[in-house]
């Protein structure tokens, strides 16, 4: 069975600080990887995704993530955070095979950016 682990439950940063949120998954086969974000009072929305190819993927709002297969990791990064990045971030995985539909989510990381 697949599982996803997010190391940090709550991260507090000041504006302009650099961000890295950890995500590790457990699955032996091909995977598709996602980061979703939930801003206060809003629904989950996709930040970025990785299916194949270049392991460094860029998403919306200046976010990027790097897939490191040997470490089963897909960490999210942003060089300089803004107050508007305050949100909850979820890493998710599904098996990269036809017929695999469900997303398996990590427990989430709450990010607070102080102005």
């Amino acid at each position, binding site marked *: 069975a697949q599982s*996803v682990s*997010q190391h940090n439950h709550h991260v507090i940063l000041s504006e302009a600080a650099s961000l890295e949120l950890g995500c590790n998954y457990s699955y032996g086969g091909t995977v*598709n990887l996602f980061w*979703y974000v939930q801003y206060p009072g*809003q*629904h*989950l*929305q*996709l930040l970025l*995704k990785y*299916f194949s190819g270049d392991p460094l993927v860029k998403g919306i709002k200046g976010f990027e993530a790097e897939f490191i297969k040997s470490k089963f990791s897909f960490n999210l990064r942003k060089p300089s955070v803004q107050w508007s990045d305050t949100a909850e971030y*979820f890493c*998710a995985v*599904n*098996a*990269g*095979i*036809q017929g*695999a*539909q*469900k*997303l*398996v*989510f*990590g*427990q*989430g990381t709450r990010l607070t950016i102080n102005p």
Partner: protein
Amino acid sequence: GAGVSQTPSNKVTEKGKYVELRCDPISGHTALYWYRQSLGQGPEFLIYFQGTGAADDSGLPNDRFFAVRPEGSVSTLKIQRTERGDSAVYLCASSPQGGPYNEQFFGPGTRLTVL
């Protein structure tokens, strides 16, 4: 265009009662998913529909939970004999078609509280 909508936004019920939660997917999306999110956790898969049929119901916790999508559009999640442990936010998502490579678009959720 309109996103995924869910009604009601909040539902408070008493232990042992029956509840129905409704999901309206994005028009034209053939795939529909239900997830459940408990406090402090990431969403947890419940069931996936492709068209009218439940293609994967492996996440339903027990036979008190049932979902339908009779016309391949709107879906209803039904919970019988509710228990306090059923309290959570129930999320619906849809995607243009099934498969692991399609982005899932999430609704705002229904917050269910069982007293």
